[in-house]
């Protein structure tokens, strides 16, 4: 399938570049429908690999790239339920997400995240699956999960550690603070910083440049320098599931859901 228009995302193949556009209001929260549509995307990606050289992931919403997991939906699944039952469902949910993230991470195509605004939690983790992150100046990156009594669960810690090292992970994870693009570029998280609204254009230009290279060599180079941290990813699921049974999580989710702020993103 060369194109798809779903309720939370769309994609199209154009000039050898697959563009995945996120468009679920208010800020591309990743819930069950997004996961279903991402699963369709990775299934299609497999078939499009021979027709494309790059993937660009971006958001069509002004608010940002993605605020991460849909915490309201997650709370509904947890509220007043048996913890063992919830734990089983959460593990299944994480395994589906990890399949998607690992597939994008290991894609033979060169992948680019064009980000702006809120790039938090699971949204940040989606960007981290990409080979390059191009950000406009409004972008902010954050792992706010600890305030919910959790760790990031979409593979972000192992990927960030692989790409930038343990100290950066500790800073983001243990303080819950967010980084702007200046900081993100200083530490090597972001490859290019552009003015507001320009990230997608620059990502397309970068994708066009990538198209000039021999695909076989580019794929070999990527496989050589970007191993999938499988063991740590599995461990992450275990830790997340263990933490998820703690009462602090339900309480943290409840506070978030009951917040009067429509978008309570400030860590």
């Amino acid at each position, binding site marked *: 399938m060369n194109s798809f228009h779903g309720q939370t995302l769309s994609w199209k193949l154009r000039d050898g570049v697959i563009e995945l556009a996120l468009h679920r209001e208010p*800020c591309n929260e990743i819930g069950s429908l997004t996961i279903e549509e991402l699963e369709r995307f990775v299934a299609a990606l497999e078939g499009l690999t021979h027709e494309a050289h790059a993937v660009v992931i971006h958001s069509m919403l002004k*608010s*940002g790239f993605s605020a991460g997991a849909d915490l309201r939906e997650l709370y509904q699944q947890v509220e007043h339920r048996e913890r063992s039952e919830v734990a089983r469902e959460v593990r299944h949910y994480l395994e589906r997400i990890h399949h998607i993230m690992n597939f994008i991470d290991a894609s033979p195509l060169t992948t680019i995240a064009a980000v702006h*605004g*809120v790039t938090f939690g699971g949204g940040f983790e989606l960007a981290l699956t990409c080979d390059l992150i191009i950000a406009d*100046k*409004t972008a*902010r990156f*954050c792992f706010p999960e600890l305030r919910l009594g959790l760790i990031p669960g979409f593979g972000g810690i192992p990927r960030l550690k692989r790409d930038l090292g343990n100290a950066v992970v500790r800073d983001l994870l243990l*303080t*819950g*603070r*967010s980084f*702007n693009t*200046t*900081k993100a570029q200083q530490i090597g998280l972001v490859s290019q910083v552009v003015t507001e609204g320009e990230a997608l254009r620059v990502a397309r230009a970068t994708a066009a440049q990538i198209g000039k290279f021999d695909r076989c060599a580019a794929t070999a180079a990527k496989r050589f320098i970007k191993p999938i941290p499988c063991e740590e990813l599995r461990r992450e699921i275990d830790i997340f599931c263990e933490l998820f049974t703690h009462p602090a999580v339900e309480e943290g989710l409840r506070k978030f859901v009951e917040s009067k*702020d*429509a*978008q*309570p*993103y*400030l*860590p």
Partner: protein
Amino acid sequence: MPSTHQTLDEILTLAAAHFKVPREKLSPDDDFFKTLGINSLQTLDLLTKLELHFHVELPDYELQGVSDFRTLAERIQARL
């Protein structure tokens, strides 16, 4: 290094321009959530603008409990 007064003035000018509020309607002790009518998402946007303008890092937790422009200016001044 600019004085706290100068920093405060720059914050007020920047906030007024960014959120399209007349500068004269903003004063140092205003609650900026109320005066600017902003939510936490827009607060992050303001934080980004301030960090880039003053070339400082301002961790989000430094803003917890801060709701007036004067205290915000003091937090930024401490990092200039």
